[in-house]
């Protein structure tokens, strides 16, 4: 009548033996008697060492692979928000950027250090820009983006719900603050073609932004925020808006601007003709232009690889420490001196 069924240490098989008489009662009996076959792993030194070793063995190669992927990416980052302000406005950048009459043209020269294979992705990067602020995130109307003027309840878009008593499409702060710096690239004499199609997620284009919704009464208010939209192109095709409206998670973010579909060679100098329209000076944000190739893992970020390597190394280290401890000091089995009540006794 052994309730435990004489469980020997059959962890390797994972299932303990069940005495004959219980099986007659079937699984339900075992269930109610809380005597179901069970695997009862114990953290033995061997198991611990093996686990850590295994993790190390998995993680270090993974780390190397990801690091390699990251290293294969060539990236050019150029911060232009300071340099593109004319000398005379350096002390008062906000006035400069707000003054529409001043032309905002600016040229940057980027040197390609390593050959870059097409497609080369163009990003703009904003820092200290809180696209994840609750007021900002909420300030949009998904239904309006999909159905246009037919959808009236746009109270979430306040204060950019309407201007001049007419509804705004697309409404809300996000659309209103659309990024509007523009870039043109040339290599030597020839212009590099920038493909600005297919930069947004397909599901956004197809299901979140209407194909028949056209911008209406947009940026017509007293206060102009960011970029304007071509009223003749439906929202579903305004990919820069779609990209912008998929809000970033963190205050530093990059957004895809377009693609250069030509290879760039080492030592090429790329001239960027940009229009520095967007106001990041009010809140002290940075603007960067990024040209980057991509790997199967995405862009350039060593973190994942380094983290993998670190974790893998750490695991191996622990397993070695454990091994040493185990060899040096086999566990004093059943030493009850560690038990709290015995410790208390010793103390008292």
């Amino acid at each position, binding site marked *: 009548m052994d309730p435990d069924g004489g469980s020997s240490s059959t962890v390797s098989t994972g299932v303990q033996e069940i005495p004959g008489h219980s099986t007659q009662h079937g699984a339900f009996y075992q269930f109610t008697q809380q005597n179901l076959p*069970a695997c009862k792993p114990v953290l033995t030194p061997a198991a611990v060492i093996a686990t850590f070793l295994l993790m190390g063995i998995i993680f270090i190669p993974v780390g190397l692979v990801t690091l390699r992927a990251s290293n294969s990416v060539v990236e050019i980052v150029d911060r232009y928000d300071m340099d593109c302000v004319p000398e005379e406005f350096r002390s008062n950048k906000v006035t400069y950027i707000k003054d529409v009459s001043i032309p905002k043209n600016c040229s940057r020269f980027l040197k390609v250090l390593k050959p870059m294979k097409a497609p080369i*992705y163009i990003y703009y990067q904003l820092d200290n820009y809180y696209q*994840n602020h609750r*007021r900002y995130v909420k300030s949009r109307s998904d239904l309006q983006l999909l159905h246009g003027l037919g959808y009236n309840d746009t109270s979430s878009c306040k204060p950019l719900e309407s201007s001049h008593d007419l509804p705004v499409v697309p409404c809300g702060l996000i659309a209103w603050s659309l990024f509007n710096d523009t870039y043109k690239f040339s290599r030597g004499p020839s212009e590099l073609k920038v493909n600005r199609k297919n930069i947004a997620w*397909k599901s956004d284009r197809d299901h979140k932004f209407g194909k028949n919704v056209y911008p209406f009464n947009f940026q017509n208010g007293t206060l102009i925020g960011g970029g304007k939209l071509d009223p003749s192109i439906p929202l579903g095709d305004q990919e820069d808006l779609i990209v912008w409206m998929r809000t970033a998670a963190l205050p530093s973010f990059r957004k895809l601007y377009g693609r250069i579909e030509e290879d760039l060679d080492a030592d090429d100098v790329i001239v960027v003709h940009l229009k520095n329209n967007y106001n990041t000076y*009010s809140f002290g944000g940075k603007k960067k232009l990024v040209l980057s190739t991509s790997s199967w893992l995405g862009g350039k970020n060593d973190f994942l690889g380094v*983290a993998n390597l670190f974790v893998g190394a750490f695991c191996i280290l622990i397993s070695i420490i454990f091994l040493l401890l185990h060899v040096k000091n086999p*566990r004093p089995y*059943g030493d009850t001196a560690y038990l709290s009540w015995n410790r208390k006794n010793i103390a008292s």
Partner: protein
Amino acid sequence: MVNLGRRRMRGERRRKLHLSKIYSFACGKQSLKEDHSQIGGRGYSRVVFCNEPESFEAGIRSYADNSVSSTKYNLATFLPKSLFEQFRRVANFFFLVTGILAFTKLAPYTAVSAILPLIIIIGATMIKEGIEDWRRKQQDIEVNSRRVKVHTGQGTFEYTEWKNLKVGHIVKIMKDEFFPADLLLLSSSYEDAFCYVETMNLDGETNLKLKQGLEVTSSLHEDFQFSDFQATIKCEDPNANLYSFVGSMEYKEQQYPLSPLQLLLRDSKLRNTDYIFGAVIFTGHDTKVIQNSTDAPSKRTKVEKKMDRVVYFMFCIVFLMAFVGSIFFGITTKDDLDNGLMKRWYLRPDDSTIFFDPKRAPAAAIFHFFTALMLYGFFIPISLYVSIEIVKVLQSIFINQDIHMYYEDADKPSYARTSNLNEELGQVDTILSDKTGTLTCNTMEFIKCSIAGVAYGRGVTEVERSLDSKNGSTLIDDTRDSPVRNVPIKGFNFTDERIMNGKWVNEPYANVIKNFFHLLAICHTALPEVDEDTGNVSYETESPDELAFVIAAREIGFKFYKRTQTSLSIYELNPVSGDKIERTYKLLNVLEFNSTRKRMSVIVKDEEGRILLLCKGADSVMFERLAKDGREFEEKTLEHVHEYSDAGLRTLILAYRELDENQYKEFDNNFSQAKNSVSEDRETLIEEVSEKIERNLILLGATAVEDKLQNGVPDCIDKLSQAGIKIWVLTGDKMETAINIGFACSLLRQGMKQIIIQLESPEIQALEKAGDKVAIVKACRENIRHQISEAAQQITASRGTSQQAFALIIDGKSLAYALEDNMKKMFLDLATRCASVICCRSSPKQKALVTRLVKSATGKTTLAIGDGANDVGMLQEADIGIGISGVEGMQAVMSSDIAIAQFCYLERLLLVHGHWCYRRISSMICYFFYKNITFGFTLFLYEVYASFSGQPAYNDWFLSVYNIFFSSLPVIALGVFDQDVSARYCLRFPMLYQEGVQNLLFSWRRIFSWMLNGFISAIIIFFFCTKAMEIQAFDEKGRTAGRDILGATMYTCVVWVVNLQMAVAINYFTLIQHIFIWGSVAIWYLFLLAYGAMSPTISGNAYKVFVETLAPSPSFWFVTLVVVISALIPYFSYSAIQMRFFPMYHEMVQWVRYEGKTNDPEFVAMVRQGSLRPTTVGSTARLAAKDNDLKDIMELLTGSSQAESDVAYIHLVMEWCTQPNHHLDVKACHLAKQAFDEAIAELDTLSEESYKEHFDHAAFERQPDTLDL
């Protein structure tokens, strides 16, 4: 018809018997005059019109009907009441408030997603409440529809349900039926309206009570006589006092006073009486029993109380975080507008709502505080309470289903009546146990006897069996194994071929043996009942031990079969010829038993005309009454008696005396004089007269009756005490019985110093005689105080020198003083320093008070176990009340929290289920907080990067379903199924239980460690995810990760981490665990798929997030892998180190099991070593103590001649040998004596005298102690 006729005949015969003749003491007349003047006044206004319950007069008095209800709700009150109950919980209230706030603009998420989980959870709890209440209703219905015979007019009685009973009804109760209401006894099957009542359900006393109807109604024996019976009863209003009743009956225009003697209380049982007629006085909720029953107190476990504190602590953290967040938010918001210049222009701070308005930043900060509270509310697990309740219900199902706690004989499984105390079962520090019906089965078995100095009887007692099985040798048990005894006879477990089957004639003292059994057959108050078909005789007796005696006499061949008013007849088997000889004794007097006399005698005249006084009584009173020439066998008998009591048997000494005609005459005169006196000290007079005659007795021998312990009680107690649980016995029984049982259960053992506190000193008795109440109380108080402090000093003195264990035995009277406010602390101090505590003669109230004292003063968990209604108070007072669903009565079970059928199931209930449940619940709660902190803290960290604006990192529905779908099923599996070690190991290493008693698994340290683990996991998840996906392209197509992707990835990691953490933390995987853990992870992906497939208006930024963005991207999978593993490494390393270097007890047991060393005795003993504490009780400790003592003595004997240490030893040994009562191990003492002599011989330097003196002194001291018992 034949049957009926026979019954009638027997009734006739019995009616000739006036029981009042047998009982000379009990039927004293009570004077009630002063009370009766109050009838009709305030509090005494009840008027009952017997036999006309439907009359107009009765109608206007609208008395309660006889249905009882114990439900909490009814249809109308269920909703409001249970809702109120739910929201009384702080956490639920918090979620209600946040749920309501979610409908305002403050909410960081949509309202529905916040309120829906709350509705689900409250709904589930309410359904559970409803089901439980419905069950109670079922029970009520069962009770209310029991059937009883009621007079329906014209002298016919018909069955009706209890609930239809009305005040004034005449009912007829048959033998062994319960009284349906409080009745006035009118008449019974006995001539003088006597009836026997068993009040076990009310006060737990097992001996039958006598009730007697008024003389005027005692002639109403037949149904038809009630057709025109009419009487009016005026009495007190319903009250809770069980032992008083004031009233009067007007019958045939005469007033008759009524007393408690005529009152039959609901839920007591008619015994030994064929039927009674009674009039219903109090019904339903007016009955004294129900007036007495208080609402079951709602009990909460320590773990839950602590959990509340953890919840409050979490609230504090939440408030703190929200506060910090608000301050930062306020500052950044204020910053946004600087002299009309917008900083973060894209937020339009110039045209803002109050929530984000820089001009009103403080207000915005305050509003934000509420938003943050809602957001960080995820720190508090909303599903915690409901999960715990679900888990507990399932746990109780397991308890109910456990086949090892199922009592096959009575078809009674264990039944957890309240499910919310499961984990408390794993933390019990002190068990307070009732004796009768709990430890014992309340049957007595005649098992041994000593006749003429020869010990007979080969039966093995439970305690011997337990000790022997410990010793390893299995004793050959003739009684059980012999094929001869095929049908065990209840009450008789005696085998000895020297006596049985008439062999006794060949014994040397055959004559003494004959007298011995004659005495057993005659000296009693039993009534024989002859089955006329078979000629078998059965008996009805007041107490079970008397029954055992008569049966023993019958089995040996002295069959008592007839009792008349004045005579007793027995059949005696002539062993030589085999004939039956009929002997009739003329019964002259019965001097009955009571607790002060401790003996009973009958005076009979036998057929030869000799007048015999036959007497049986406790050894303490009997030996001093022996005649000089009656002490022939005294020494031997004494020795046997000691042996018997050591084995936990109840002993009685039998002796007799022949009286000559004159002596008897003189006695008879005095006796009848005393009996007929009406003065107050009538009883004292009777006692004095009896005292005089019961002298100069001739000793016959001694009987040993086993107060049968329930199966496995000694083993169970042994295991429990090995588990470090203290066991107190609280019994209403006599001190001797209690001590006997103490020995039988190994709660007491030889070598244990007994501290007996009682008020039997001569001074007190003298004072009592004097009758000055104030002086008595004062003297008693002082006396008790003195005794307690002296005992405490004794213990202090012995500490350090030896491993002396102490036992405290206190009687009810002393307890009353010891429980007084200024003394109870002292008492408790003393009691907690003793290994075992026995309180005898304690009233139900005292039981409850002791329980309360232990509970409140030590703060430890108490468990009370009992079976009778007298234990109800105790059961309700204790943290856990366990009812024994024995044969008799349901009162205790009804007020218990868990009902079991046998005491020994307690072992499994506590050590296995209790341990498991405690472990499960505490791990579960810890884990709950862990998982919610892991989740909630990522939200907080995200806030830091979202300028504390209150934007959650995750989609609204991700937030709200987290607690319900992705993380709660594995926790429930943990709470229901997890086992650290299997049941077998729980029982094998009882010390494991201490983990619960010391609350190691739910200590603040452990809770905080888990919380810390949560914070660490959250930090790792958040930073790894954000760093890995920060700004660069997320996939090959160069697109970057937005809020949606980061949120979904982080959430995936959280789901993985909390589920894997569970997998790492538990060490018991059944298929169910696998399904739940991996299932939860799988559900998350499925949810993501399904939710993402819904239209974007519902799914928001989670639209197609998995299929389109996450799944195709390798970085999502890599991030998941590295984050999840990294987040688990800290815990894994920690537990590996702990397991390896500082294993807890259960981990050691796991080692033992894992290494397969369970059969290596040395190894197991080493792991077990922690379980043997020096002062514990139980048979293991008893054996250990015995070994030690013998060892000491052997050492002493073989030891050197170091005189000084010898002397010290000898003192010790002498002290130990001269322990009060029977506990002399003969062998040990013999050795000690030798040692003593040797020592004396050796010690020339010291005066021999002083030692002799010491020895004499010690031996002398033993005497009074022994006599006390």
